Structure formats: C-alpha cells, structure tokens
C-alpha cells in the first residue's frame, strides 16, 4: 500500500517535473532563461551521476571533471580537426572512451579508499587538465575551442533544449532505476558495511568499479551535452573546481536523497547567476548563504523537506519510523 501510493506520487512528481522543464522555452521571456535551464539540466545530470558514487556508494571522487571534460573535448576535438560532420559521431566515441578510461583508472583508484581515493581521483583529473592545458597545438590549451555548433536542426537553440531535456530525463530515470535496483541496494551496503557484503558473497571491488564506470560515463554525457549549449569548450572543464561544483551541489541538495543533487544544482546555479548579476561582492553573499545552508540544513535541502514531511506524518501516527532514505 505504501509502495504503490509512493509509486503513484513518484510518477506524478516525474511528470510534473518533466512538464515544468518542457514548458520553459514557451513560458520564459528570454533566451537567456532557456540557456540557464539548459545549464541546470546538464549540471543536474552531472551531479546526480556523481552522487551515485558518493551518496549511494560512499566514494568521494574529486575527479569527475575528468570525464565531464572528456565528453566535451571529444566533440570539440573531432569537430575542430576533422570537421562539422563529426559532431554527432563524436558523442558515442567520447562515451566509449570515457568508459574505457574509467575502467582502467577505476582499477587503480579502487585499490585505495577514503581520503586516499579522493586524492587519487583529484590527481588523475589534474594530470589530465595539465596535459590538455599544455598540449596547445592539439587542444588549444587555455584558449579552448570555439565555434562548435551542433549539426542540422540541433543548431536551433530551442530544439537543442528539448534534446537536452529528453536525454537528461532518460538518463536520470535510468540512474534512478539503478539506484533502487538490487544493484543499488548492494552499493548502499558497500557504503555502510563492506565486510557484510563480502560475507554474503558479493565483491565490494567489482561493484565499486561498476558504479565508477557508470557514473563516469554519465558525467561524460553531461559534458557532451554542454558543448551544444555554449558552443565552446575550455580546459576549465577538467579543473578541480568543476569536480568541486558537483560536490557542493550534492551536499547542498542532500546526499542521501536521489534528487538532492539535482535540486542542489538548481539552487547553486540560480544563486550564482542572480547574485553575480547584482553585485561585485558575490563571494561574500554566496559564502554567507552557503554557511547558513550548512548550519541550518544538515540533511541538505531535499533531506530537510523529507524530514519535515515525515515528522508531520508521524505526528499523526504514534512511534513513526524515521527514514534517512528517500521514498520519492
């Protein structure tokens, strides 16, 4: 009974969310807001994919920007060196490359855990950044590459927006199914009690490797989507601050809620844009807001909302159970 009602509510939330985003180009007054919505969708995907590693499996990677950059640069480099026709084929090529690289690097990074894992992922991403930066003749270095326009009908911004919308929604839906599948359950167990996982005959390492590859491939997908929005790529995409942004979004929105990172992306991007437009002292304002968030919302925004809903529900029932996992 609870399951089906939550499934119903869940389906409703999905449709509402989809429709809301779908209506953006129609309702908004300027192309800028559509552009903003594209950024939110793409970063939302990136953050949700990242959180599969962290919130779900407990692996804090500070290097997902590596794959984000690969997704973007495969399109950029192909178009720049081989021609416009390569835009669309470059996307699956980039994803395959990300999958292979994340598999190989994954084998190395899962050998260590905790803070060492974090440092190692950071180091690999920085290495990639440094190489891309230095290899000026091939990648354009910190000039980046501009003028990368999606072919055919996708060159139209509104059409591209719907393209992004569909891809992001399908990807998030897929990740959500994954998170609530038996595989997802194992991942949560890996985070909470790796030994028990071994006792029941499952491999901790294999599962960590699997989710690392999956998360990275979706990060690359997000990167490749970004190219069509900005029509340019830059080495910043590999830099550790990009990895840091998805971490911030996840914490802001709530690590333990599936949609937390997505909401975190919405909040952070909107805050940055609005505050940046109003004052040159945006760091002071943004920093203060972050501090307030951290102190007042220990479960992240979505987590706090869930918590309140549970409390108001269990105020009606006696001895309500507190869940820390999302039910929607």
């Amino acid at each position, binding site marked *: 009974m609870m399951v089906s009602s939550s499934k119903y509510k869940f389906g409703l939330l999905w449709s509402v969310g989809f429709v809301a985003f779908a209506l953006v180009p129609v309702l908004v007054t300027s192309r800028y807001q559509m552009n903003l919505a594209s950024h939110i969708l793409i970063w939302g995907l990136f953050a949700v994919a990242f959180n599969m590693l962290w919130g779900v499996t407990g692996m804090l990677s500070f290097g997902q920007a590596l794959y984000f950059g690969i997704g973007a640069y495969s399109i950029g480099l192909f178009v720049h060196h081989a021609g416009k026709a390569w835009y669309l084929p470059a996307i699956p090529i980039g994803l395959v490359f990300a999958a292979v690289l994340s598999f190989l690097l994954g084998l190395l990074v899962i050998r*260590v855990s905790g803070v060492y894992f974090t440092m190692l992922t950071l180091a690999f991403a920085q290495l990639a950044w440094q190489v891309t930066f230095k290899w000026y003749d091939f990648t354009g270095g910190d000039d980046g590459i501009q003028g990368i326009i999606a072919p055919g009908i996708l060159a139209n911004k509104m059409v591209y927006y719907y393209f992004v919308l569909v891809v992001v929604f399908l990807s998030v839906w897929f990740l959500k199914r994954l998170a609530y599948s038996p595989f997802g359950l194992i991942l949560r167990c890996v985070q909470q009690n*790796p030994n028990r996982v071994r006792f029941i005959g499952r491999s901790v390492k294999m599962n960590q490797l699997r989710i690392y590859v999956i998360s990275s491939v979706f990060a690359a997908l997000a990167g490749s989507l970004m190219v069509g929005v900005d029509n340019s790529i830059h080495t910043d995409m590999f830099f550790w601050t990009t990895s840091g942004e998805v971490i911030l979004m996840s914490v802001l929105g709530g690590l333990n809620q599936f949609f937390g990172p997505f909401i975190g992306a919405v909040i952070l991007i909107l805050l940055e844009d609005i505050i940046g437009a109003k004052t040159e002292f945006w760091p002071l304002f943004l920093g203060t807001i972050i501090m307030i968030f951290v102190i007042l919302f*220990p479960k992240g925004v979505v987590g706090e909302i869930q918590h309140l809903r549970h409390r108001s529900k269990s105020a009606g029932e006696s001895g309500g159970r507190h869940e820390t996992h999302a039910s929607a």
Partner: protein
Amino acid sequence: MDFNFIVTQLISGFTMATLLFLVASGLTLIFGVGNIFNFAHGSFYMIGAYFGYQLVSVWKVNFWIALVAAGAGAGLVGAAAEFLFLRRIYGRAQEGGFQILLTYGLILIFDDSVKLIWGTEYKSIAKPSGFTGAVQLGDILIPTYNFAIIAIGFVVVVAAWWILAKTRAGRIARASAVDREMLGSLGVNVPLVLTVVFGLATALGGMAGALAAPLRSVTPGAGIEVIIDSLIVVVLGGMSNFWGAWLGAVLLGEVNAFAVAYLPAWSTLFSYLVMVVTLIFRPEGLFAATRLRKV
C-alpha cells in the same frame, strides 16, 4: 655535468621545499590530527600575508614580531571559524562533505573580506633588514633570507614532532583524530582540543603566508596557488606525519628543481605524477612506518 650548478639546484630545491613544507604543515596538522579537511587552508595563508603586510609595510612593525603576530592573528581567525561554524557539523553523517562545503564558504568570505579591507592592488612586503643580501659560496650565490626560511622550517618540524610525539597534549591531540567519542568519555574536553588544534594549524598557515610574502606578491586569490601543492606534500608525507611532510616537500622541491633545469617542458607534470604514483603504491605516504591495511 656542472658540479656547481647541481649544488645550486639542490639548494634552491631545498629552499622551495622548506617554504612548501611550512605552508603544508598547517594542513598536515589539521588533517592528520583533527581529521578535518581544511579546504580553506590557502585562505589562512593569504590572511597571514595580508596581516604581515599591514604590520610591516603600513605600521612599520619589526618583521620578526610581525611574523609571529600575523601567524597569531590568522590562528585567532581560524579558531573563531572553528568555534562558530565547524563545531556545528561534527558528528554529522557525511561530515566530510559538509567540511568541504563549509570551508568553501569560508574561502569565498575571506577572499571578499580581504578585497574589501585592502583593495585589489598588489601589495608587497620588504625583506627584513639584515636578510636582504646573499652569501657567496664559491661560485654559488644563496640569498640570506633563504637561510632564515630553512631555519624556521626546521624549528617547526622539530617542535611539531616533539610536541605531538612526546607530550601529553600531543597525545591527546593525536587521539582526537582516532576516536573523538572515546576521548571524550575519558574526560577530555574534545571540542576545546579541536579548536586549539585548528587554531594552531591556521596560525602555521598564516605564518607561512607572512614568511613567504617578501618573496611573492600579496594579492587576493593568493590562497588558490598553494592549496594543491600543499595537498601533494601532505599526500607524499602521509596524512599526519610531520617528518614525512618535510621529506615529501624536499622530494617535491628537488624533483621540480631538476625537472626545471633538465626537462623544462615537462616539469609542471611532475608534481601530479609523483602524487599519483605515491597514492597508487604507497598511499600511507612515502615515509610512513606502517603500511595501510587494504579495505
């Protein structure tokens, strides 16, 4: 192979290393002992440099007094930040994530505060009198200020190691990294310990900033340049190992010094390569006594 040049590079690598170590030492302390990842460590380095500027260049205070004062100032700011903000997230699930978010907020606030108070122009501190020249050793010229830095670095590493390893206070501090609850139930005022440790770590970072300032420019955003390098040193040395950090810094400094001389095109890649190799093969640090148990 020019012998003189090799010696020169050895010494220049050593100087770089000491400065690197001093900057990283605060991070080692806070991370290894407090188990807090202080992302904002670079900001305290920057605050120390600005305090140093204010004391030496504006108020004309004696350099060495200003050095200690700048460190103390940064330490006070750090202790206040810990007391007011970091304390509230101890014991939370996913504390690491909140540390990152909180310290990022601190970075933003500190950067803008510094800009508000001192403006965006580049500032500078002159070297202390008596240390502006250089000493000639045969064909090699070594600035005397470098000796001061190396001496201070040595004092710090010995003092830190001795306090942490040999005194009761040090043992308590180290225990707080291992098990806060247990320590609390033994009657130790754990929050106070953490505040003191954080304050000392930021004081070290601030002092390093003021010490390095005569060699660099004092500017907003100065913190970003040191955080990654400090991280690499901490990794090389093992998270809470002061001698390890010092040796790690020396390794990094020398590798860089010789890479610059003989393989200039690749020198910037070396730091990251060393970090990657260390983390893959000896994540507990190159100089740690015990090997890490693989989970």
